[in-house]
C-alpha cells in the first residue's frame, strides 16, 4: 500500500472519491464561498463537472448591496476583502439563480449567513433535499445584531445554537464553517459538533487591515476586511490539524490553497476535502491542477485511494 518502488504505477487508477459523512464527493476538491460566484462565472476557464463541488456565494434572507468600495486590497501573499455579503437575497436566489444552479453538473453547496437566529432559520428552512442544493454551509462569522454585534462564530454557545437550529430546519447535510479569529478553535469545533454539524469547513478569513499611507486612512472603505490567500495557510493548516485530533466529523480544509502541494498539506493535517478560494483569482485552473496533483501524489506514494492520506501527519 505504501511502497515507492511498487512497480509501474504510472497508469494506476486512484480512487478520488471522499465521503464526508452524509455528503459524498467524486473528488476532494471544492471551491470556496464568495470566490466562485454562483458556479457559472469560471466555467469558461475551469469545467465545473471536473470539480468535487462548488460552494455558492453567501446568501441572506434579504438582498444586500454589500459594502462601499474599495472592497479589495492586496497584501503580502494574500488579500483582504470586505464585500459585506452582497447577495440577491433568498427570494431572488430561488427564483432567478437556483434554476441555473441546479443544472450545474457538480455537487453544489449553498452558503448561508444571518444576523440573527431568525435569519438562519429562514435560510435553513428554504433548502431541503431535492431542491438542487446538496449541502448547506453555515457561515457563522457574522455579527449577531441582537447581541450587540458579537459574532456567532466566536462564542461556542452561540455557534452550537445556530448549528442545532439549522440542523433542525433542513434535511441537507450541514457544514459548519469556522472562523479562525478565536482563542481556541478546538472549543469551537467541539461546539458545532455538539450542535449536530455533519461536516466542519475551515477556515474563514482572518480579520485584517491595510492602510493607505498617502491618504492616511484604511485602504478598504469598510476599514477592516478578511485576510485570505497563501499568507494564512500556516494558520489554517495548524487549525485543521488541531481540530482533526479533537472531533469525529469530517473536515473541509481551506485557506491559501494555490497548488496541489498546498492541498496535500491540508489532507495530511486531517482534512478529508479541500476548498480553493483566492487561488482561483491567481490561477483559474488551480482546482483542476490540484485534483491532478493529488491523484499523482497518491500514485507516486503508493496509495490506492485519496482517503488513505487523510490525517497521515497527525
Amino acid at each position, binding site marked *: 500500500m505504501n511502497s515507492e518502488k511498487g512497480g509501474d504505477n504510472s497508469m494506476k487508477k486512484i480512487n478520488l472519491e471522499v465521503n464526508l459523512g452524509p455528503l459524498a464527493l467524486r473528488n476532494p476538491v471544492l471551491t470556496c464561498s464568495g470566490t466562485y460566484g454562483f458556479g457559472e462565472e469560471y466555467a469558461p476557464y475551469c469545467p465545473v463537472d471536473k470539480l468535487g463541488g462548488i460552494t455558492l456565494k453567501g446568501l441572506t434572507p434579504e438582498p444586500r448591496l454589500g459594502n462601499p468600495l474599495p472592497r479589495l486590497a492586496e497584501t503580502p501573499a494574500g488579500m483582504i476583502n470586505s464585500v459585506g455579503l452582497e447577495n440577491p437575497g433568498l427570494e431572488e436566489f430561488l427564483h432567478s439563480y437556483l434554476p441555473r444552479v441546479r443544472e450545474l453538473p457538480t455537487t453544489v453547496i449553498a452558503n448561508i449567513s444571518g444576523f440573527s437566529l431568525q435569519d438562519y432559520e429562514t435560510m435553513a428552512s428554504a433548502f431541503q433535499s431535492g431542491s438542487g442544493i446538496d449541502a448547506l454551509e453555515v457561515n457563522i462569522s457574522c455579527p449577531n445584531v441582537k447581541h450587540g454585534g458579537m459574532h456567532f462564530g466566536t462564542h461556542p454557545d452561540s455557534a452550537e445554537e445556530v448549528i442545532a437550529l439549522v440542523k433542525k430546519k433542513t434535511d441537507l447535510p450541514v457544514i459548519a464553517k469556522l472562523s479562525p479569529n478565536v482563542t481556541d478553535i478546538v472549543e469551537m469545533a467541539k461546539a458545532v459538533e455538539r450542535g449536530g454539524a455533519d461536516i466542519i469547513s475551515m477556515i474563514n478569513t482572518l480579520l485584517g487591515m491595510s492602510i493607505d499611507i498617502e491618504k492616511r486612512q484604511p485602504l478598504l472603505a469598510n476599514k477592516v476586511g478578511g485576510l485570505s490567500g*497563501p499568507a494564512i495557510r500556516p494558520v489554517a493548516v495548524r487549525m485543521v490539524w488541531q481540530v482533526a485530533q479533537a472531533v469525529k466529523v469530517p473536515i473541509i480544509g481551506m485557506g491559501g490553497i494555490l497548488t496541489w502541494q498546498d492541498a496535500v498539506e491540508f489532507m495530511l493535517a486531517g482534512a478529508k476535502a479541500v476548498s480553493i478560494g483566492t487561488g482561483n*483569482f491567481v*490561477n483559474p485552473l488551480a482546482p483542476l491542477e490540484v485534483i491532478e496533483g493529488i491523484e499523482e501524489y497518491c500514485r507516486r506514494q503508493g496509495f490506492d485511494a485519496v482517503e488513505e492520506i487523510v490525517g497521515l501527519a497527525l
Partner: protein
Amino acid sequence: MLDKAKVVSHQIMGDPCYKIMKLVLRTDIAREGQPGQFVHVQVATGLDPLLRRPISIADIDREARELTLLYRIKGKGTEVLAQVKAGERLSLMGPLGHGFTLPEQGELILVAGGIGSFPLLPLAKAARAKTIPVRLYWGGEDEDFFTSAGLGLWQDAGIPVSLSSMDGSIGAKGNVLDLIRENSSGSEAGQGAGCSVAVCGPQVMMKVVSEYFLQTGASVEVSLEERMGCAVGACLGCVCTLKDENSGKIRRGKVCQDGPIFQGKEVLWDYEQ
C-alpha cells in the same frame, strides 16, 4: 480564455518619467477581443504580487494574433510587469467584460483624461474601419505626456484629436471639459441627440463629462475602473452602483463582467453604502 501569451515586444514610450509602457503580445485572445474589453494579467510567477492586474486592450491585430496593451507603471504589480522581456510568456485571462457599443449612426465622440485614452484607441480604429465619424477630446498634463501616451498612434490612425493641457504647453489650457465646451458651441458635438460619446479617465472627470453630454441628449458610455480580484464576476470585489432608468431601483454592477463599459446615465457616481 486562459492563455500563455508570448511577448512580441515591450518598451517604454516616450519620456521615461511618465512610465508608460507598450506591450505587444501574441495570443488567440486577439481573435475575439473587442474595444473596451480587457485582459487580466499575471504579472509575476511567484506570490509577489499575488493577484493579476486588469489592463485594457489598446490595439488588436486579428490576423497577426497580436494584442497591444498600454499601461502606466503605478505600483508593484506594473513594476514587476515592466521587467518582462520579449520572447517570454505571460499568463492572460481574456477577453473580459463588455466593450463599447459602436454607434449605428451619428458621430462618435471620444473623451479621455490622462491615460484614459488607452481603451479608446481600438474603439476609434473600429469606428474608422466602419467609416463612422470619430474624434477625440483628450486632456492631460503637458505636451510630453501626450507624446509619451501615444498621441502618435492616434495621428497615425488619422483620428482628429483636440488636446487640452493643464499647463497650456499643447492644445487649449485647462481641463478637457473646458475644451469640449469651447469646441462644441454651435457644432454638432454639443447638440446631443444624434451623437454617441465614450468617456474614459479619472472618475471625477468621467462624472462631469458624462453629465455634460447627457444634458445635451447624447448617448454616453463610460469605462469604469475598480480593484479586481477574479475579473470574471465571481468575487463581487469590483462593483459599481447603478440606478435603473425606469424603475429607479438601485443595484450593483460588476465592473469586470457587466462593464467595464456602462451607460453613463445609469451610473451613480457618488453612492456610498
